[in-house]
């Protein structure tokens, strides 16, 4: 019997080896062009900045990290908080938060609406949400610009109706970014919400009404708790890309309203401060990881609650 188990073990080892070989190309490509560079960037964040971009290779410095939040006063050389950076951090976090709230406000009724359609037309409604989802982000951002710019759809309509006589300045403000992100990321909220509302057992809703609950009570006490996993998944799917948004604030914020993504780009472009750019990138990644951790904790709690 020993020899049989030995051959089994040998076959097992061979299987293991071929599985590593098979996955090697994918792992290698991702290591070279995604994971590895992040480590290099981490190292760069601890080097001294070069005079014309890049870094002074191998020269250790904490300036990159300290200037994420601190700035030296150009007049008296004292160290204070970098107000510009703090503003951008705050704008990124709060705009991402409001984007999540807005997509939830519009996305939840939409997902609920789709889930309560007859099975035959449901697929068409879902498809209508999927099309914008697969359309180029830049094109959708540009499309939003057509609606909110000074000579755009909204302003032209409002002026022709006579509600306003001068166009509303929406472009290049935080509101423009908020509208753009809500528009672009809405499908990311609707799709997971739909997946969980579709599984909702409406017998429970009926039971609620039998016990004289109002529509609002049924929604708040029965529907929302049951579809909470979808709400959490949708929120995280919207919040994370919002936090790292680059194209939307660049096109709609017009360089006046910057988010973290644009601050990072600035350091690698005109700012010529690669260590600072690297440090901000790692901070952004850390914020994303925190959001993901909250999500994972939430999911495991919901799962253990049900099981």
């Amino acid at each position, binding site marked *: 019997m020993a020899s049989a188990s030995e051959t089994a073990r040998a076959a097992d080892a061979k299987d293991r080896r071929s599985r590593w070989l098979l996955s090697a190309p994918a792992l290698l490509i991702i290591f070279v062009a*995604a994971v590895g560079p992040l480590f290099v960037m981490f190292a760069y964040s601890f080097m001294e900045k070069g005079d014309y971009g890049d870094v002074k290779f191998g020269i250790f410095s904490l300036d990159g990290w300290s200037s994420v939040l601190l700035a030296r006063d150009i007049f008296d050389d004292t160290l204070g908080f970098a107000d510009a950076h703090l503003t951008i951090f705050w704008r990124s976090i709060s705009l991402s938060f409001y984007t999540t709230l807005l997509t939830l406000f519009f996305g939840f009724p939409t997902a609920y609406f789709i889930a309560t359609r007859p099975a035959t037309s449901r697929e068409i409604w879902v498809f209508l949400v999927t099309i914008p989802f697969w359309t180029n982000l830049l*094109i959708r951002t540009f499309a939003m610009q057509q609606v909110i710019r000074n000579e755009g759809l909204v302003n032209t309509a409002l002026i022709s109706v006579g509600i306003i006589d001068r166009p509303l300045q929406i472009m290049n403000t935080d509101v423009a970014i908020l509208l753009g992100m809500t528009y672009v990321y809405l499908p990311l909220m609707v799709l997971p919400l739909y997946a969980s509302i579709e599984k909702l057992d409406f017998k429970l809703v009926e039971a609620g009404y039998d016990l004289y609950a109002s529509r609002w009570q049924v929604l708040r006490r029965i529907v929302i708790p049951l579809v909470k996993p979808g709400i959490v998944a949708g929120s995280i799917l919207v919040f994370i890309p919002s936090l790292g948004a680059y194209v939307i604030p660049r096109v709609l914020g017009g360089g006046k309203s910057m988010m973290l993504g644009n601050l990072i780009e600035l350091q690698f472009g005109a700012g010529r401060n690669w260590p600072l750019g690297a440090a901000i990138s790692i901070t*952004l990644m850390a914020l994303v990881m925190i959001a993901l951790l909250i999500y994972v904790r939430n999911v495991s709690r919901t799962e253990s609650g049900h099981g």
Partner: protein
Amino acid sequence: MARRRNFDIRVQPGFGLIALFTFFSLYLPIAALVAYSVNAADSLSRWDGLSLRWFISAWNNQAVQDASIRSLILAAWAATFATIAATMAALATTRTPRYPGLTLKYAFINQPLMVPEIVTGVALLIVFSRIKVWTGYSGLGYLILAHTAFCIPFAYLPIRARLENMDLTLESAAADLYATPWRTFRRVTLPLLRPAIIAGFMLAFVISLDDVVITEFVKSGGQDTLPTYMLGQLRRETSPEINAIATVFLALSVALVTLFYFVNRRRP
């Protein structure tokens, strides 16, 4: 408090209205974009009637031609490499009991989805700019490599899903009939897997075609793809030519997604 006869337990007041408004707002900007692309006027602020002049001028624009061709070549290479690597990885990570390193593989394959694009973009800028100086090579290879990496998780998704739902009996039958493992793979597994591989390739192709952030940081001078060309143009006073390009791009994406739907829905 007797319940009304027509009381529908599934209805929530106002939800239908908000939903219809949402669908309307999802398509309004796209409609505006398309409308301005067939506008005869020189600027985006006037409407001068229908015309295809902006499509013609975009078609004749050398920079647009170059960028479009580059985008398609890049997407074709990246999607091909990503699909091959993802198929192999999917075969290695499904239909097996958990083994040491499996979680690590999942984490690796999904890594491009977890990190904001801007972060990957600048990290690649750091590494590739140095390699470009060392080797003197600044061709399309960097873009193909970078695109392949972030396309892998998208190609992996449908292939893995299909493998996990696949019936093992046919493969065991082939083995029982003395087929070699390679022959079994070639004649049984691969044909069964084909729809998922096509779906994965198409997803990867669309993802590569759409990318703007990572491309913007990896490209060398004169290596604009269609999205980075458009991003550059949006900085300036935009002409309706951009709308025409965007409309064509949009039509292409919609066509690919529709095709993807049909490929994915067809069950053998």
